[in-house]
C-alpha cells in the first residue's frame, strides 16, 4: 500500500518551528512520507508543494495569528489546482472565535497546544480521502 504523503508547512513570517518539526518526525515514525517545506512559505508555495508531492494531507503550523489571511488564500489555490480532496489540518495557536470560520473554509482538523501526537496521527489516517 502507498504510504500517506503529508506536506508539513510553516507559512507566514514566524520562525518558531519546534512544533512543525516534532509533528513531522512523529508522522514519519508513524509510517507516513513527510515533506517538510521549511520556513516562510507563501500559500502559493504550499499549494505547489502539495501538487508536486501528490500530497494526501497538508499540515500547517501557525502560531502568529496570521491564519485568517493565509488559510482562505491557500484553500482558494487548492480549489484552483483541483486539490480540494487534500486533507488540510492546522496545528498551533488559534483563538476559539476563529475555529468555526476555518472549519467552514474546509480545514478539517485544528489541533491546539497540548494535543497528543497519537491523536493527530489517527486523525490524519482516519480522514484522508481515498485518492484515485
Amino acid at each position: 500500500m502507498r504510504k500517506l504523503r503529508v506536506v508539513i508547512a510553516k507559512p507566514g513570517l514566524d520562525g518558531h518551528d519546534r512544533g512543525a518539526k516534532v509533528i513531522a518526525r512523529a508522522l514519519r515514525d508513524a509510517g507516513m512520507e513527510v515533506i517538510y517545506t521549511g520556513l516562510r512559505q507563501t500559500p502559493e508555495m504550499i499549494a505547489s508543494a502539495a501538487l508536486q508531492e501528490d500530497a494526501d494531507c497538508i499540515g500547517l503550523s501557525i502560531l502568529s495569528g496570521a491564519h485568517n489571511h493565509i488559510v482562505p488564500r491557500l484553500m482558494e489555490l487548492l480549489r484552483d489546482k483541483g486539490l480540494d480532496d487534500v486533507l488540510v489540518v492546522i496545528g498551533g495557536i488559534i483563538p476559539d472565535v476563529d475555529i468555526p470560520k476555518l472549519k467552514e473554509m474546509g480545514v478539517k482538523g485544528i489541533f491546539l497546544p497540548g494535543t497528543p501526537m497519537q491523536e493527530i496521527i489517527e486523525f490524519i489516517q482516519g480522514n484522508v480521502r481515498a485518492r484515485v
Partner: protein
Amino acid sequence: MKTVAESGKARWQHDTLEPALKKSPERAASFSTVSGRPIDRLYTAEDVETIDYDRDVNNPGAFPYTRGIHPTGYRGKLWTMRQFAGFGTPEDTNGRYKTLLKAGGTGLSVAFDLPTLMGRDPDHELSLGEVGKCGVSIMSLADMETLFDGIQLADITTSMTINSPAAMIFAMYLVVAEQQGADWKTISGTIQNDILKEFIAQKEYIFPPRPSMRLITDIFGFCAEQVPKWNTISVSGYHIREAGATAVQELAFTLRDGLEYVQWGVDAGLDVDAFVPQISFFFNAHSDFFEEIAKYRAARKIWAEAMRDRFHARNERSWKLRFHSQTAGVSLTAQQPYNNVVRTALQALSAVLGGTNSLHTNSLDEALALPTAAAATLALRTQQIIAHESGVANVVDPLGGSYFVEKLTKDMEDGALAYFRTIDAMGGMVEAIERGFPQQEIAESSYRFQQAFERKEKIMVGVNAFVQQDDPPLEILYIDESTSDTQLAKLEALRKTRDRERVARSLDALRAAAATTQNLMPRILDAVRAYATVGEMCDALREVWGEYEEVPII
C-alpha cells in the same frame, strides 16, 4: 575508591536505605530533571569533595561569581522587573507601557511584530496578516516617537527584543532620546542583537551569518565610544530552550555564542575590556527548580573563567555575567490556564534564587494569545510578592553550599564545557551553525521530550494528567486587522511627506558602506533621521549581502 567503612554514604545505603527500600520501593525506577538529567536520591559532602570553595564557588562579588556578582545580592537593589510587551500600533503599546510603569514596573521591554523583526514593511507580501499581531509594528522613526511619547528615556531603561534589524531599531531609539534631550552617554537599556541564536533556534534571520556578525561588531565598536552604558547584546538562551534544548544545551550554546561574539569583536580590532562589559545574557527560567538555579550559577562561573583565561580580560566588569531571565513560555498550557500562575511563580523563584539581574514573568493567558492588561499585571504582582513577601531577597545565594545545588552546578559546568570542546573542534559557533550541529542537537532533545511526555514519563498538569473537560473560556486579547490598515495608511502618508531625495541619498550611502568595512551605525542613523523605513534599510543591505536560507533539519 573508598571502602564501605570509610564512606558515610555507602554505609548509609547499606544500613539504612536498603532495608527501607525493601519495605517500600520508590515511585519510579529512576528520577530525572525536565531535561532528562538523572538525579540521585541524596547528595552529601562526598559529592562535592572535588569542589574547592575559594576556587570554584567563592563569596558573592568575588571571582568566579558562582554565588552572584553583587556582594550584597538583592539587599542593595532588587532585580529589575521588566515585563515584555508590545502589540498593535505604537499608540496601543504606548498605553500598555504607561499602565505597567504605573503598576510599579521598573523597566520597559519592547516586543516587535514579525514584519519589524524580519525587516519587512507592512505592505510587503510576507507581512500579510502579521502586522501588529505578535508585537508592536514599528516602521520608521515616526512610530518610535509615538511608542515612547510621554516616557522619558533618560529616566528608564528599555530592553528591545530585536535581532536582524537591531542596528536600525537601536538607531531609532537613539534619535528619539536625542529629540528628548537625553544624553547618549548616560541612557541605558538593552538590544537583543543576538543573531547566532536566530540561526540556531528562533529563525528570525535576514542576512547570512558573516555580514550579520559584522553588523553586531559595528554596534560593539559604536557603543563603546558613544553609548557606553548600553547593553549592546543580550546573548540569549531563552529561545534555544524554548526550541527544545535541555538546560545544559541552553547553557552551552548560549555561552559559546557569547565567546563567538567576543572573538569576532577581538578580530575586528576591539579591545576586550572596551566592549565585553556591555555584553549581557538572557536565560530561560524553566520548570525544573534546582536544575535552573544550578544553570545560572554555572553560567557566571564559566563566563568569568573564559573571559579571564581565554580572552585575558583584566577588567572585572568583563568577568561578571549579568543576565535577564524570562519564565518558560513553552511550559504554559492552554488547558486550565490559571495553573500557569503557579508555574510562573515557581520558575520566577528559581531565577531569583539563581541571582537574575532582571526578570520577566509570563502571563497566564500566553499559551492562547498575547496577554491582557489584567493578566500582565498579575504576572508583575507575582514578582513583587517574591521580592517583598517571601523573604528570599534578604540573603545572598541562600542555596550556596547545598550539596545538591553545588554538585548540580558542577555537572552543568562540565556538560557545557564538553560542548565547548566539540564546537571549538568544528572551528567555532558560526561553523557549527553552518553544519547544523546545534540545530540537530536541539531537534533531538525536543523530540525526546515529546516522546517522554506522550508516555507520561514527563507530566504536564492539566494536559497529560489531571485533565478536566470544559474549562471556562478565558477572555483573551484579540488583535484584529485594524492595526494593519492603520499602519498601511501611515506608511503611505510617510512616503508622501518625507524628503524623498534625502531618503534615497541616505540609503545609497548605506548600501555603499555595506560593501566596505567601515562602521555602519553612522550611515544607519542618517537613514533613520531621514525617516527611511525598517524595510527600506534592510532591503538596502539585502541587495549587498543577500539573504540567508536554511536547510531544514527534522
